Structure formats: structure tokens, C-alpha cells
């Protein structure tokens, strides 16, 4: 067997590619989660103008993670990224009680969009390290997650700046895809 055929064989078994969409309000921590997943330095993050994309290999999957800016002016562009999404990841700043309603409305809009029908939902209850943060269970109630019947969903408490909980969330993502 020559080197070429060996290479061809290696290429013939690629990981399955997944498209993950990372959404949420501005300052929720989407880019920090993205960089944590890619094992990159998170100490000099700037607000996302537009979007960031990174590919990470995890549990035999190649995860293409799209992190779209969360500021109000950018939100209308979110829908341009819905097509072929395998898992929707929604990031919430658990300590930002003032904008709890706003983040709930945005999430509701996503869940009622046709292009995201049946797409599994992972909610990261981020910034658990802050004293005023809501617990994952309280946040799930506040966002009305238990009433979701049309798709698998999960809420994961995390502190992205410390890397806590991020991996657990991704494990659920991979599991829910394998089940499909």
C-alpha cells in the first residue's frame, strides 16, 4: 500500500461535521464560550462586531461553531445563519436580571422560527460565579423551558471565564446528536 492510498484512506473517514449556532444577548459570554471550546486565551475578548467561527473536534465530531454578535442592531441578521443548524446554543448572563425578559423574548422568537424547527436547544446559564446569578433551575423556569415539547433541550450552569460547565454542555450536544 502506497502512501497515497494510505492518505486517501485517512481522508475517507472524516468526522461528522456539525453546525452549532451560538446566540444570546450582548455581553452574555458567547465569544468566551467559543474561545474556551477552542482552548484559546480568553483574557482579551472584545465585543463581537459581526461574527466569529471556529472548528473544534470533540467526541468524533467536527463542530463548526458560529458565534454571532448579540447587540440589538445585529440580531436581525441572526436568521441568515439558521439554515442547516444542528444544535442551537443559547447563552444567558444569569446575573443580568434586568434583561431577563428581553433574553426570554429573543429565545422565544428563535424557537418559533421555521428554520430552527426540531433543532435541539442547549441553554448555558453563564456567569454562575457572580453573587447575584440565578441558578440554572430558576433560570429554566424564568425562560419557560419546561414547556418546550417539540425538541430536546437542556440547561447547563457554567462559568465560561473559568471554563466550568462548558465541556458538560458540549457532551450533551454530542449525545443528543447521536440519538437523532
Amino acid at each position: 500500500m502506497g502512501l497515497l492510498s494510505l492518505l486517501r484512506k485517512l481522508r475517507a473517514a472524516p468526522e461528522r461535521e456539525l453546525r452549532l449556532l451560538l446566540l444570546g444577548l450582548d455581553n452574555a459570554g458567547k465569544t468566551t464560550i467559543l474561545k474556551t471550546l477552542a482552548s484559546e486565551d480568553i483574557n482579551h475578548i472584545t465585543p463581537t462586531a459581526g461574527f466569529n467561527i471556529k472548528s473544534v473536534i470533540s467526541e468524533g465530531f467536527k463542530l463548526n461553531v458560529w458565534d454571532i454578535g448579540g447587540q440589538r442592531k445585529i440580531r436581525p441578521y441572526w436568521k441568515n445563519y439558521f439554515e442547516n443548524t444542528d444544535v442551537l446554543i443559547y447563552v444567558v448572563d444569569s446575573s443580568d436580571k434586568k434583561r431577563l425578559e428581553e433574553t426570554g423574548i429573543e429565545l422565544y422568537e428563535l424557537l418559533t422560527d421555521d428554520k430552527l424547527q426540531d433543532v435541539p436547544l442547549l441553554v448555558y446559564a453563564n456567569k454562575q460565579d457572580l453573587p447575584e446569578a440565578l441558578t440554572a433551575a430558576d433560570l429554566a423556569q424564568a425562560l419557560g423551558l419546561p414547556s418546550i415539547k417539540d425538541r430536546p433541550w437542556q440547561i447547563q450552569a457554567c462559568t465560561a471565564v473559568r471554563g466550568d460547565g462548558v465541556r458538560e454542555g458540549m457532551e450533551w450536544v454530542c449525545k443528543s446528536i447521536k440519538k437523532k
Partner: protein
Amino acid sequence: MYVFWWFFAYYLRPIVKWFLRKTTGLCELQRICYGKVQGAPRTKAVDYSLCMSKSPQIAQLIAHLNDVSDNQRFVGSNLKELTNGAVNTVMLVKKINPKIHFQFVINFGQCVEQIWGYRQLLAEVEELRKTVYDADNFGHERKLQDLWEKLMPHERLEGRVTKQWQYIGFQGDDPKTDFRGMGLLGLENLLAFASDYQDAATYVLSHSHHPHYGYAFAIVGINLTSLAWTLLKQGDAKTYFFNMVKSAPSLKLFHQFYSYLFYEFDKYWIECKPKDIMEFSTIKDNFEINVRNALQDPNAVFRINFSVDTI
């Protein structure tokens, strides 16, 4: 290829140096200080030569200067004293006669000031970047107010937390969370651009409201702080700083570098005719490549050439 260069730097370089020393009667640092043009070409070559030096005295000197500049003590009389000390050490180690080579004393001293001034600037910038924007700090709040007044002199801010902030390109109604990883440095840069180049800044701000090519001024500005900081840290910006001033570069000069980047980015953005803000990362990456390429030319000098055109 890499092995070849390593081999060259480690074994052949000393032989070439010895040969040149014997034939010209000058050490490498002298040849650089007399032969290279003042500014980035000379100072970068001196920097490289010092780093490659195998003399223990010079290594010790470098370590000391690094330590002083990292702690931001390379200033005032200390700066003069240390520079003279560095020149004297090198003269002694390299057996250079100061009476004959007085020009070397001047030229080399200048290089020392620039090299460690740059290092100190990096420490200073890094400290500002790590200072988190604090809404309870009066000084921080004052600067934010100033930024508004410089950019929007004819409109009063209705409150501390208001939707008006979005007009100058912050994400929500309170800018404090937008500085993130760039900390106070992001604000200081924006403020310096708005105060020192007020015309250019308001012109750029008006572009950011363009119906087709608009963008978020402050957010893009904070992302450009990240670019300026990266270029400073990775050393690409040395060309700029060594060519701009003959002495140690100041924080003001960093703000000037930033202002240049912002002004040029705006121009580039409009030229690219982006479909919408979602093209930001691509355009910013291309812009970064262009800037890095421009900085490769050791003779590059950057200045804002501001002239109002109508589009």
C-alpha cells in the same frame, strides 16, 4: 530551511562577524550604528544584535534594562543614567574608544532609549488594558462623559444609562460592559482619537452612520484597540514607533498609532463596500494583513492625512 537559518545564526554568524571585525576594525554594533539609517532600520538591527550577543556582561545589561522597563522605571533621570550606563558597558566590552567614536555614543544611546522605551510602553499599555472599567470610579466615568462631549458636542447626554450611547456605537444603554478584555485602554484610545483628532473622529463617526456601510463606531473602535495592542505586543509596531520619534515612545504616541489605524480602517471599510456589518471579521482580517505588510517595510512612516471629501 529553518535548520539552515539556525545553523547560520549559531555557527556561521560569529565567523562572519569576526571576519568583518578584523577587516573593518569595527564591531557589529558600530557597523550598524554607522551604516544603517536612523529609525527602525538601525534600532531593529541593534536590538537583534544585542539579543544574539554571547557576552555575559551584555546579557546581564539586557536583563537589567528589561526589568527596569517592565516595571516602568525607565523614565526621567533614570532613563538618562541607564542609557549612559548601557552605552558605557558596551564601549567597555567591545573596546570602543569614546573619543574617536563619539557619533557611536549618540547613535547607540538613541537605540537603547527606543528599544527599552518600547518595552516600557508595552508594560504601560498592558496595565491600562488590565484595568477593568469601573462605573464606581469617578475618573473612569469622567472619561466616558468626555468621550460623549467630544464626539457629540451639540447634544446633551440625558442620563448615565441611556439609549443615546448607541448613537456613538456602544451596544446597549450602558457602555461599561463593552470594554471587556481591552479595559480602560479601549476607552482611553477612543477618547484620544476623539480629542486629538476631533475632526477626523467626527468624520469617521459620520461614516459609521452611513445608510449602507454603517457600523458601530465604539465597538469597532474597541476591536481596533485589540489590533493596536496585538501589533505592539508582537513587535510589528516597532517600525512605526522607531520611525516616529528618536527617543522613548510615549503612551500618547500609542494613541496616535491607534488613531491612524481607526482612520485608515474606516477608509478601507468604505472602499470595500460591505453588504452589512456581518462582513466585519473578514474585512478586519484583510485590513490587519495590509497593516502588517506595510509595517514590514522598515522605512514606513504612518500619518493621518486628513482631508474631508464628499461621497
